[in-house]
């Protein structure tokens, strides 16, 4: 499995993905000047822009790397040669996942450091009324990384059942978009206001979908980092536990399906 992880990381670097990220990372240089357009919250805007850029880059990586990693191997028929080695399919898949997760962690560490410097610079030019809480900023980046690692899991699960890259890519994007609103829909359907307007059949259906889809809204700590609002520690642990449980389910299901998959 460690070998596969290494191969995955090497493959990503060989494909010059990191250089691509660095090219996008040039946008960080423009953040202080863009943030200075704000009237009263230059530092806050620079944090918003930095975290958004990190989030966007990680999303692209999670969707495209996660969806194409397995598909590319199968398309190029690399899987035959790899799986002919004394190596189980499970450790192949888990190795791929861990390699991608490690790459996301590496990327967010580098981008997080750059963002820190940019924010410090913006803060130096126009100090904000609210002090910057660096640990919450780091927590926001950490939880964003966890969120996208989970999304890699979704992409890999979809890859194991798909014959092309369309289902994993679009499926992952759909899962990502819906993951932000499932909480709102669930709360609305279960609110007294909806009791009259929503049919009784919808309620269990929505609840089932709510439990099935990943709920990624809890991983978003941007507001806490931007405006220095203390996050709830118990909630953070619960979110972390949710990440572990949900990722375990995704990887378990993906491995089972991958083990049964016929390779032609």
């Amino acid at each position, binding site marked *: 499995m460690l070998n596969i992880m290494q191969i995955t990381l090497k493959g990503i670097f060989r494909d010059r993905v990191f250089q691509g990220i660095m090219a996008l990372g040039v946008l960080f240089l423009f953040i202080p000047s863009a943030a200075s357009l*704000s*009237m*009263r919250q230059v530092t806050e805007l620079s944090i918003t822009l930095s975290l958004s850029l990190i989030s966007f880059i990680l999303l692209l990586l999670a969707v495209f790397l996660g969806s194409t990693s397995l598909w590319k191997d199968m398309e190029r028929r690399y899987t035959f040669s790899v799986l002919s080695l004394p190596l189980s399919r499970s450790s192949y898949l888990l190795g791929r996942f861990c390699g991608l997760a490690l790459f996301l962690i590496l990327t967010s560490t580098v981008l997080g450091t750059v963002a820190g410097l940019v924010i410090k610079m913006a803060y130096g030019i126009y100090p904000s009324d609210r002090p910057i809480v660096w640990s919450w900023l780091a927590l926001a980046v950490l939880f964003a990384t966890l969120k996208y690692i989970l999304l890699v899991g979704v992409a890999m699960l979809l890859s194991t059942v798909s014959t092309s890259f369309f289902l994993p890519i679009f499926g992952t994007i759909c899962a990502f978009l819906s993951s*932000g609103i499932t909480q709102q829909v669930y709360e609305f359907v279960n609110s007294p206001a909806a009791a009259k307007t929503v049919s009784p059949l919808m309620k269990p259906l929505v609840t089932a979908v709510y439990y099935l889809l990943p709920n990624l809204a809890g991983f978003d700590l941007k*507001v806490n980092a*931007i405006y220095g609002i203390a996050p709830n520690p118990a909630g953070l642990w619960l979110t972390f536990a949710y990440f572990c449980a949900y990722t375990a389910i995704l990887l378990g299901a993906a491995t089972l399906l991958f083990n049964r998959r016929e390779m032609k």
Partner: protein
Amino acid sequence: MRPVSAPAVLLVAGLLAYGLLIGPFTSYMANKPVEEKLGFVPSIKLIKPLSADQKELMGASLVMKVLMYFGGAVGKSQDARIIGEPVDLQGMSRLLHGAVQLDPYNMDAYYFAQGFLTWDAKQFKVANELLDYGMKYRTWDWYLPFFAGFNHAYFLKDYPKAATYYQRAGELSNNSLFINLAGRYMQEAGRTDLAIAYLTAMEQNEKNPALKKEYLIRLTAFREVRRIEEARDRFRQQRGVLPHSMEQLLQSDLLTPVPVDPYGGNFYLEADGKVASSSRFSFARTGNPKGDK
């Protein structure tokens, strides 16, 4: 001679056409009507789910859109005129309300909305409701109760309510000025002082040159009003009666130099001695609604 290849012809033709078109296209975009420039923004109910985990960014970009638009409208003004073309205040308000639904902590939205909803649009109730909404989230921020207090005192003349907001601003900022103001706004006499204190604070914190300019002009006007009020009070002290006109006040040598209204109006005294101006402290009232000379 080598024949020219078709792709090269296409590229050169494209470059030439682009070079010819980009000028007219840029000026067409720059001169688009107001409504088209501020643009149609879909309902926040739709933007919210679509912006996924980028709600703060979406909120900030809506605020920026309004700011750029307003900055452009002010930039077009000439000769110290504030607004050169009718500004879509309703559209601006709609976008800012959307922005705080996406990110209820966005200070720029409250700050900017307060700036134009009160002075320009005269929508005091809308402004106060927005500030009350913001206070639920920005619990540490003294600016919001400070603005709400000012709106109640200066525009709505609801002094008891103004006093409570100033008290809250005072508690949050530990600034004695607000606490003093809270007490003083029970009486109307302090209104010009209040406006000067408020605008000075706004002007000092302002980085946007267009808004800074707007505040400075209003501040100059109010300082002139204050000067007239002081002269009027001295006149009453000396002679026991209120001056019946500005001319009488000027002839008494209590008011030198002659006060000038930067909005182009003429100062006059109302029957109760209140200082007013024919401009009503707005360029629109001086007979130049479009702002040009």
